[in-house]
């Protein structure tokens, strides 16, 4: 099992837990759910501490990222309104 980690603006680390049911690859999930332009790294679940006592103090070294959040990722002005058969997102500008 994998996890996706990325730095938060406060200096901490956010951890994405992907679902199996969505049918997307972990790379596709990372591109969509990591904030736009933020570097991320895909790690093994065993790399994440299970002791959450000092969760707020967690940090991550993402000097060799696996990618960055796409322009339809969290915080962008776009959203994913569907998925093509090849796994690519159907992106639309948020109009609300």
């Amino acid at each position, binding site marked *: 099992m994998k996890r*996706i980690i990325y730095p*938060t603006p406060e200096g*901490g680390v*956010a*951890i*994405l*837990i*992907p*679902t*199996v*049911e*969505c049918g*997307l690859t972990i790379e596709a*999930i990372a591109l*969509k*759910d990591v904030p736009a332009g933020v570097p991320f790294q895909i790690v093994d*679940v065993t790399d*994440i501490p*299970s*002791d*959450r006592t000092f*969760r*707020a103090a967690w940090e991550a070294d993402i000097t060799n990222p696996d990618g960055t959040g796409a322009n339809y990722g*969290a915080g962008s002005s776009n*959203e*994913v*309104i*569907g*998925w093509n058969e090849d796994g690519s997102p159907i992106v*639309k500008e*948020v109009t*609300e």
Partner: protein
Amino acid sequence: MTTTINADDGVISGSAGLKSTPDSSGELALQTNGVTKVTVTAAGNVGIGTSSLAAWQGTGLQISDRSALFQLTINNATYLANNLAYDGTNWRYIVTGAGLVYSVGASGIASVFRAASGTAGAIATLVESTRADASGNFYFDSGYGSVATAYGCRAWVNFNGTGTVAIRASGNVSSITDNGTGNYTVNFTTAMPDANYAFVGTISNTGSASYNTAAISANGTLTRTTSAYGFTCTGITGTTNAAFDPNFVNVSIFR
């Protein structure tokens, strides 16, 4: 043996094939091996596997004793029915038993109607059980008493926020974000049409933390967009409260 109809002189060859018998019924019957398999009535209705067709209003196709596909001239709607036929005034049972009809209206409304068991030829009372209208709205009864618009759960997830955070099951959720203690974001696989959806969440803690009350709430600094929703899980004891990681976090999004 191949059966041939000669269009020039009407002579039919083949002793066990198509048979032409003069009568005044106005019906056309196609037989194989001496048995009628297809009947075309004077009204233009067609029966396959039956020569005893229900009294149609409009044009229909009946298969065996109770399956029917027909279009009514009164409303141009198409019907796929089991054991129900419309005679121009009433729906009637074709044979004794329950009936069901699926209608596709010319205006774009599709419905399923049911009729409780009745005797052959009796008037059937149809009750609408589901409907899809021209705007894409889905209606169902399911004990409500009549069909009403169904508003769906557009995303849901059940996850464990303790230890190694893990998702138990989900729908239309691509991931959850562990932002910190008791602080999560649900990311939707496919975005909502707007951010005016209703968020419903429950939490329960079977871990070491002990609180008199636990609550799940939106945090003003967290996300509420068409693509994601952020929230905080808080435990309250007396006058103090603190974010904590529940064992069970259940989230549903309705729109």
